[in-house]
């Protein structure tokens, strides 16, 4: 068991990070921390992908010295996925941050429960 654990260190770390991020996103009441959780979760996946794409002892996937043999290079696809994923995650983060700013301006709080309570109170007053 222990040797396998040592061999797949990156994967394990990424899974732990994913759990941390997921839990933060799900359970934390503070919006900023939720967004941080989301980023941790996404980063964990990138780490996982990068770790799976990397092959010990091989070079960057750019042709060097005319070597055409694929076994000389690491797998380039996960790197591409990570890049795409980062773009997606940046846009989602931006949107959520923008929303958070709007909510903070309106309710002066970052606590989602607090926001829900003040929203309900506001509606009661309107009635």
């Amino acid at each position, binding site marked *: 068991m222990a040797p396998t654990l040592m061999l797949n260190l990156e994967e394990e770390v990424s899974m732990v990070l*994913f759990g941390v*991020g*997921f839990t933060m*996103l*799900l359970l934390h009441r503070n*919006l900023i921390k*939720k967004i941080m959780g*989301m980023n941790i*979760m*996404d980063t*964990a*996946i990138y780490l*996982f*992908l990068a770790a*799976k794409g990397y092959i010990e002892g091989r070079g960057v996937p750019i042709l060097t010295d005319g070597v055409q043999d694929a076994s000389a290079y690491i797998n380039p*696809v*996960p790197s591409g*996925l990570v890049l*795409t*994923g980062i773009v*997606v995650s940046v*846009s*989602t983060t931006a*949107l*959520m941050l923008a*929303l*958070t700013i*709007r*909510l903070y301006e*309106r*309710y002066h709080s970052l606590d*989602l429960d607090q*926001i*829900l309570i003040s*929203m309900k109170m*506001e*509606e009661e007053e309107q*009635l």
Partner: protein
Amino acid sequence: MSFVQNFPFFSIIIAMFSGIVSSVLSGKKARAVSITAITVTTVLSACVLAFCLRTGQSYTYMMGHFPAPWGNEIRAGVLEGLTAVLFGVVMFLSVVGGLRYTEEDVEPSKQNLFYIMIDLMLSSLLALIYTNDLFTAYVFVEINTIAGCGLIMMSQTGRSLTAAIRYMVMSSLGSGLFLIGLSLLYDVTGQLLMSPAKEAVARIVADGSYQIPLLVIVAVVSVGLAIKSGLFPFHYWIPDTYGYATPTASAVLSGLVSKGYIFLLIKFFYRVIGTENAVHSHIINTLFVFGVAGMMFGSLRAIMQTDTRKMIAYSSVAQIGYIYMGIGLGTQAGMIAAIFHIFSHGATKALLFISCVGLYKASGDRTDFLALRGSGYRNRLAGAGFLIGALSMVGFPMLAGFISKLLFATSAFASPHKMLITLIALAVSTVLNAIYFLRLLIGLYRPTKSGSFVEAAPAEQSGRGGEAEAGRSAKLAGRKSNGGVKPAEKGAGQVSGSAALAANPWTMRIAIVCFIILNLILGLFSQPIVRVITDGLAMFG
């Protein structure tokens, strides 16, 4: 290669491009562009459907110059074509039916943004339907989420902002799970395209290696997409989200967006994991259990609501439960029933959301049951639309909902272990549906004095006496008397029957009539559609 085979790609790119162009256009022009884009893509999808029906097989379309397993692919068959056409029609009618209300609810300077979101939504839905690549699916899932969030927050009230953030949080959870699922799948199989991935999965299963990772993949992807489509118990964002967006947004979100994810899940089961493996993994049983629980819970909560929008939203929770129940049966027939229900619920729920706005307008923008009393007379067309929609949801014969229930019931007989539960769940939830929809219908057609609503509503509350409502209604009444005679006059004058009818924008009339026709078509001529679904599933194979 026939020219028609380019159409799936064209339709995705047209929708996306019109969104980009709209960002520099005025609201009116963006609207025109958006409606044109929806029309054109629907026509293109119809061509694809016709093409696939004629050739009798599906085809894959290579994006760029690299063949599988490296390049990106689009795949079109009859089921994809049919789904794209129906989604396009529902989207078109929702946008057209809600035109006026979109104008009212959205700031003039932000009108074009609304239509950008619609365009992006259309493009991402089409991409989810057509794509053959899992990572592309992920990217478009995220685009879909962002567009959906934009649609929800468009009216910029406190409610819609909080609904949007809740939606974003839940969606991010779902996307995260989906992404980790497909990363694991890539790890195990080395493939992202669906067809090669399926071969790899078949090899793995034959070897007996990687059993646990495979189980985790199926579980994580299913849960991720279930969260995003609002399956019980991940439904809590639904009522606020559907309840407080503008009508078009509500119709599109509940009618189409959640269905897009379910369609993706079905594709994942058929095209990647293989149905036998999915059934063996028992994940499908979990989906079945939560589907049934969702049917019960959604219906029960819907009964407890006093606000129509929330009631309809909770009914969506129940209907999503139906779909997952069908998938969870794990048979071909169950899957056909689920897909048919995706269509019938999309058409019906959008009709309900659009037509009930007409009723709200005839009741002074109030959405609770009491205010809506008698509104069926004040706005007859919207009343008729709501009547048809509600009857279809309840499962009245000759309407779409009846066929779904028939298909669910017949498919239940094919899976002996789940037969009894399915039938009981169907029966109970149908009766519950009937309770809350028919109760509302009776209210809609219950005449009030002199066709006014302002009088009847608060007074009815005070008539109940001693309840918590009394305080509120007293406040209301007090406010009214402060305001002098004005509100009363407004109530009596503004909404006598014919006046409200005249206020129906013609676009909305067309939309309601078309939705009713769509419902009847699905209810009366279901057989060709069911046949196409069956063929399409066979092509998934």
